[in-house]
């Protein structure tokens, strides 16, 4: 009897230590947040915004978008923006509408994927060996970005995947796909159909009209982000490939365990994956603990870039929403009629080449950014969800940061960066809190 109680004391002590450490970590995360909720990401926020809008719209029925597409009036742009940004932020909606204007919905699916093309023998074979199914499949929407100069042709095609909805068995079994599943989950359904989806994209009218072959990207939120990474890893050898993945609050499951190693090694060549997440969201801890391939530290083949948006506070679950993320991305670069300049993240980092090239239309949309810093002060002062406090950066840090921000014509520090709220924002960069290195402007 004495032994038994001694053993249980050990268990209790271990449990108590574990609990205290976990509770302290959680308390630290919730109570010691910095008061300046801003980050270097404001420079790139508008670049990510269209993909966030698509990921948000992916939660909406395909049928609604099909109807809007068929009318040909471009109503899907308004619809998508309304889904991504709440009605209380009407000015941001206007801004987002301008950014999202070049995009048009093409097609999508929200049904169980048996075989989209029954002539595909590989798909038929895989389908014959399928596991149990729930009758539900991955929901995705395909969007195309038209060129400013040639509206009939598109320059980029994006596949946006939906995240988890309610108590959907198919969704949750897919979320747990990494641990092995006898079910025909969404990763497996996509694996046998991804090449057909790519062919459908190649058959799009705007794709065929394009003089320069449009690049294909994939995006999504949470489970959708996991699926977006998966299609980039699982496309058939020799066919069209996904050039870039923009994953919002991504699931730690990418489905890489389902892809054979040779194909995986081929598909990660020159691939870029941007993982964009709100700081403190529920999956940020899960990714740190159990991230499936590719790991966040991968710098080349694939180039994985982690983008932390630190623009809100709240519970882990509340911060996980794509609506919140999309609204913050829009808000970070807009202030009551003053849209700020933005840039696309660099395509060449170190010696790692990538397939993806930012659209040349980016230049038409991106502004010089000369008004950026003045307007930035108002951005920080405006939002009720953000606080502005005095946190002056030290002069040495400012000097370093000035080079990061921009340079004046004589190559010296730009005096506009020296004072005010903007310098606080840049201080985050100087402190190494954010993962971006200085990047050249997209050409």
């Amino acid at each position, binding site marked *: 009897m004495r032994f038994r109680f001694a053993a249980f004391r050990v268990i209790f002590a271990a449990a108590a230590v574990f609990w205290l450490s976990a509770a302290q970590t959680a308390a630290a995360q919730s109570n010691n947040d910095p008061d300046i909720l801003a980050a270097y990401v404001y420079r790139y926020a508008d670049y990510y915004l269209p993909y966030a809008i698509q990921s948000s719209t992916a939660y909406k029925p395909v049928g609604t978008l099909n109807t809007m597409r068929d009318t040909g009036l471009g109503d899907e742009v308004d619809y998508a923006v309304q889904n991504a940004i709440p009605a209380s932020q009407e000015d941001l909606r206007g801004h987002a509408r301008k950014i999202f204007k070049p995009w048009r919905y093409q097609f999508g699916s929200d049904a169980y994927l048996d075989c989209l093309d029954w002539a595909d023998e590989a798909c038929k074979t895989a389908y014959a060996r399928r596991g149990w199914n729930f009758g539900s499949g991955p929901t995705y929407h395909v969007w195309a970005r038209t060129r400013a100069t040639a509206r009939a042709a598109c320059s980029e095609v994006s596949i946006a995947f*939906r995240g988890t909805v*309610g108590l959907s068995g198919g969704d949750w079994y897919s979320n747990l796909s990494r641990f092995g599943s006898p079910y025909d989950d969404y990763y497996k359904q996509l694996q046998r159909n991804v090449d057909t989806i790519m062919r459908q994209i190649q058959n799009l009218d705007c794709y065929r009209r394009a003089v320069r072959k449009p690049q294909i990207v994939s995006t999504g939120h949470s489970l959708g982000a996991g699926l977006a990474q998966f299609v980039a890893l699982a496309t058939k050898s020799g066919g069209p490939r996904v050039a870039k993945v923009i994953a919002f609050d991504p699931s730690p499951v990418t489905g890489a365990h389902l892809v054979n190693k040779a194909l995986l090694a081929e598909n990660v060549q020159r691939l870029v994956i941007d993982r964009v997440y709100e700081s403190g969201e529920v999956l940020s801890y899960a990714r740190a603990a*159990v991230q499936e391939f590719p790991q966040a530290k991968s710098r080349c083949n694939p180039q994985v870039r982690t983008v932390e948006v630190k623009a809100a506070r709240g519970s882990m679950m*509340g911060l996980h929403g794509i609506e919140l993320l999309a609204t913050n991305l829009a808000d970070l670069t807009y202030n009551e009629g003053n849209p700020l300049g933005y840039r696309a993240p660099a395509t060449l980092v170190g010696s790692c080449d990538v397939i993806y090239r930012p659209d040349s239309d980016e230049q038409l949309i991106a502004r010089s950014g000369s008004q950026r810093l003045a307007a930035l002060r108002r951005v920080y002062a405006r939002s009720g969800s953000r606080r502005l406090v005095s946190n002056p950066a030290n002069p040495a840090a400012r000097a370093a940061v000035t080079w990061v921000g921009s340079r004046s014509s004589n190559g010296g520090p730009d005096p506009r960066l020296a004072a005010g709220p903007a310098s606080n924002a840049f201080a985050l960069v100087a402190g190494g809190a954010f993962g971006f290195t200085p990047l050249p402007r997209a050409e």
Partner: protein
Amino acid sequence: MLVGSRFGDGLAALWLACCCWLIALGWSRLWIRLLLALAVSLICAFVPYFGPMLSISHLVNPKCSPNEGGVGDCIVYGGEVGGVAHKVVSLGWRIIEGAPIAIGIFVVYAIVAAIIELRSRRQALRPLG
């Protein structure tokens, strides 16, 4: 939802340790102890995270589709409950933190219970005096 959130923060470890202690006090056979401990662990591994989702599943209607993206309203009896309904779906992800805790505690308990059983058997076999 509060229970689910706190469980993921490690409260599950203390709660399960208490349950295991009570099981050890209340039942003497090894297989019953292990079975009960497994049942309690599975409940703690799943229910705090998926229970709230189950409880709102009957609210789903054309004007209410809870999702982890927080997209769209959730109107129930004319009232907007979207904020909580969407968060409940995201809560399911915390199983990644909660389930290993529950399974870990069960494994530790199984080892301890097995050792106790072995020791007590040896003591029972030892000749008196």
